[in-house]
Each structure stands twice: as C-alpha cells, then as structure tokens.
C-alpha cells in the first residue's frame, strides 16, 4: 500500500468518526436570524417564539391530506382551567414534530422546558421541548432544570430567567411536593418571581408528562437569597399572569415536516380568536386565516389545524389582533421546512 493510499485510508476513517449535532441547522438559522436582525436594526423580542425541535420528526401521512393550501380546522377542548392546573402538554401524537412523552430508542425523552421572552405584556413564559436523557422522574426533573438554566434556547428570542452560575444540587419528592435544592449566585435576576415560575412550570410539566399530575407544588431549598419567601411549597402562578398570550405550539422552529402536517396553536386571547399566517421563503404572505381556539379567557384554548403546503421553506406566525386597534399582538413565529 502506497503512502498516499495509507494516508487516504487513515483520513477517511478519522473523518468518518466525526460527530455532528442534530440541531446544527437550527443553530445556523438562529445565527442567521440574529445577524439579520442586527443588520436590519429590528428589535428582537417583538415576536417571541415557542420552540421545540425534534430533529427528523415529521411523519404525517402524505397524499391523503387536503389539496395544497387548504386547511382543516378542529378545535379540541381545553385541558386547562383558569388558575393553577398544570399546563400539561396537550395530546400531540399526530402533530408532526410534536414530542413524545416516552423515551425514544436512544434513551432520550422529550421534556418540556419553559423559557422567558418579551411580549407586549412584558416578559412571559414559552415552552420548548428538549431531548433529554430518560431515567427516574427526579433525574428527569433535574435534567430539565439544568437544561432550562444552562442551555441556549433553540429560538434566539428566548432566554432563561436564571442567572448564570445557578444549578441543581438535588431533586426529591416528599409528601406530594417536589423538593428542589438549588445553588444560586447571590445577585437576583431581573425578575426573580418569573424565574421561579419558570422553574415551577418546568418541574410540574415534566412530572405531569410522566403521569404525576398530583405533583403541583415545588419547594425550593438551598441558598435562594433573592428576597423571596420559599419556606412553603409554591404552586404554579395563574397562566394568565405568566404564560405568553399565544403559542405556536407545533410545529416548532426548524422542524422539517411532510407536506401535510398539523399546526397547533394555544393561547388565551380575546374571544378565543387567534390568527395563523404562513409566509413563504421570501417572506411573502402565502396564507392567512383565523383560528378559533377551544376556549377564551380566562381559560387557555387550543386549536389544531391540518395544513398542506408545497415543499419549501416557510415561516408560520400565530398571533392575535388587539380588540382596541386591530394591531397584531404576541406574534409567535417558527421557520420550518416542508419536504
């Protein structure tokens, strides 16, 4: 074997062992969007996005849907009550990249992680699903909290409400309460209450997804010295006070879907009237239609729509119109690819 052949073989073997991240395209798109926004001088945060990308998930039966550009709408009953019931992940088994509650073959499970973004009502929570290692419930809760604090959200408009340096020491379940032992830096974040709710929503959603809907309270122990009273277990705050008015729950940013796929919108909006807009790759409006959610305030309503689009790049936008002046509010937009 010549030296050149040996070199070629060695390089090929070495190269073949290189791993690539399944989220790379999402990362690139996020960076492109950030740099475009900087160039355009557009304020980020006007459209805060709910995102969860499950790479490779698409799988909606092709060819059986309505013709291109048509939409069938069906509202489903809200699973939410006005105050403190956990906003558990709605049933999403047929909604494209919707996450699975069960661990996948690779031992990963799709866990809800709440994040903060700006809306016209102030900072509010959005939800992403992240692929995290499975395991016991307490391990899954700890992993979701760590993800929430440390990992960059998939969407560039998102951020965590927690300061860097925070972390989880342990998670346990005692007498129907999830006990989270945290280590946090002494300087409080901009909105400590929302940060704590971000954690409580994450913890209780992970528990609910695992079938433990009884776990609705979280006790924080450790050195949380932000002037909060954490001596008692804390419940979720009312969703009206902390969740964003509209989520484009599915598909998520960066999703690659089949031609026919399910769009899911959630929210608490005036007269349960949301809007879904589809822009093509060039940003032109391809389709826009009203979406009637299953419930209006104070409940959080849901709607799912089946959408069929020709292959290409699109941006889906969910929002509501202000009852005062008709302006578009709380736009939640996701860039997706239709195969």
């Amino acid at each position: 074997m010549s030296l050149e052949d040996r070199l070629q073989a060695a390089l090929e073997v070495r190269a073949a062992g290189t791993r690539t991240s399944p989220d790379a395209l999402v990362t690139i798109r996020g960076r492109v969007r950030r740099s475009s926004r900087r160039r355009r001088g557009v304020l980020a945060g006007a459209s805060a996005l709910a995102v969860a990308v499950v790479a490779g998930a698409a799988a909606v039966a092709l060819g059986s849907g309505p013709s291109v550009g048509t939409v069938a709408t069906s509202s489903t009953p809200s699973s939410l009550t006005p105050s403190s019931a956990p906003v558990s992940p709605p049933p999403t088994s047929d909604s494209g990249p919707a996450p699975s509650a069960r661990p996948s073959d690779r031992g990963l499970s799709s866990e809800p992680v709440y994040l903060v973004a700006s809306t016209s009502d102030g900072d509010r929570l959005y939800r992403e699903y992240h692929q995290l290692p499975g395991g016991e419930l307490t391990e899954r809760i700890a992993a979701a909290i760590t993800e929430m604090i440390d990992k960059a959200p998939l969407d560039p408009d998102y951020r965590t409400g927690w300061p860097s340096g925070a972390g989880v020491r342990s998670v346990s379940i005692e007498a129907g309460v999830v006990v989270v032992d945290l280590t946090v830096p002494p300087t409080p974040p901009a909105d400590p209450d929302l940060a704590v709710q971000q954690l409580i929503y994450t913890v209780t959603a992970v528990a609910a997804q695992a079938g433990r809907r009884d776990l609705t309270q979280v006790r924080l122990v450790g050195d949380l010295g932000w002037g909060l009273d954490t001596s008692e277990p804390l419940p979720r705050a009312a969703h009206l006070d902390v969740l964003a008015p509209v989520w484009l729950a599915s598909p998520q940013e960066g999703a690659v879907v089949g031609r026919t796929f399910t769009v899911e919108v959630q929210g608490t909006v005036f007269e349960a009237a949301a809007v879904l807009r589809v822009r093509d790759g060039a940003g032109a409006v391809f389709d826009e239609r009203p979406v009637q959610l299953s419930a209006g305030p104070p409940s959080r309503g849901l709607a799912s729509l089946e959408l069929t689009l020709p292959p290409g790049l699109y941006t889906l936008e969910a929002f509501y119109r202000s009852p005062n002046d008709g302006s578009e509010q709380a736009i939640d937009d996701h860039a997706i690819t239709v195969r």
Partner: protein
Amino acid sequence: MAARVSGGRGVVQAPDPLPEAAGWSAEAGSWRAEAGSWRAEAGTWSADEAVTQLFIAQYRPLVRLAALLLHDDSAAEEAAQDAFVALHRTWSRVRDPDRAVAYLRQIVINRCRSALRRRGVADRFLRRQGPSVTMPSAEAGALAAETHDEILGALNQLPTRQREVLILRFYADLAEAQVAEAMGISQGAVKSHTARALAALRRRVERPS
C-alpha cells in the same frame, strides 16, 4: 486574508468551475449526480433555501474536513456553521452551488486557521493526538487503527499549509486548481507543498521507532 482571493479575483466570481467542484469524493456522489437539476433551480433559491439545500449536502463533509484540520469536533462544527452563516450573507452574489461549495470550503479553512492560531497550534495538537480521541476504530481493526494513528500523528506534525494540502488532496480529493483556490495559493505552491509534505510524511512514518 489570502484564501479569499485566488489569482487576484474575488472568490465568488472565479470562472469555469471544474466538474468536481460540485461535491466531495466520498460524500456527495448523489449530490453530484443531481447537481444538474440543482443548478437549474439554484438561481431562484432564496438565501434561506440555499443554506438549507447546501446544508443537507455539504454540512457533514465540511465538518469532517474541519475536524481533520482541527482535531476537535465541536470546534469543527463551529467552523462549518460560520461558513453557512457567511454564505447566507453572500448568497445574492454567489447564486451557484458549485461556487457556494468552493466558498464554504474557503471559509472553513480560514476559520480553522484562525482557530489554530488562537489556541497555539503545535502543542495543542500533540496533546490531542491520543488514539482514543482521534480514532473511531470500532470497525477499523486494531492493526489498521495503529497504522492510521501513526500516519495521522505524522501528518499532524507537519506545518499547517502542508497538512492542509494533504487533507484537501487526499481526503477531499480536490484537483490541484481547487486546492489552490481553497487555500488561496498558486497551483505551483500546491505542487511544492504537496511534494514537501509527502517527503516529510514518508520520513516520519518510515523512520524506525
């Protein structure tokens, strides 16, 4: 930066791409086969579409190239991602998949050079040379792995330009002209770097240990 200019012309305006420019030997056979129809479509792609389409065909080969140059998979991904972000900005001027692949490669090589400069090349390489880190090995077999270790270890002791030339020739399977364009040097320099690099490699791997 030298690699951005080849023969005094801007990177994206270089005429007459060689047929091989559409893809990489080991990776892009299918893409090369489809490149004709791509060319027809590519003129109408938006920057987003170009990034998506080229990502599907070229991301992994570019990460692999960067990994060979850097010996660090996560830094390699960053270099490849930088290239796609840069492509998005310049797509309106590129508008051609062949050009775009050449452009992506140049950016990756530039980013790798910068990364190596930042981290202080030589000794970092030596520290990262452990076979367990660099060799995938499972199916390669112990003997083959040992041979690969030896030759890659020798490769990584070469000067940067010589390593680049060998990786672009023998991994990416580029013609001399393409290597010259990718590295921002003349074809004559590619020839001489290649000859010197192979001679040095031969000395190192054939030296009794």
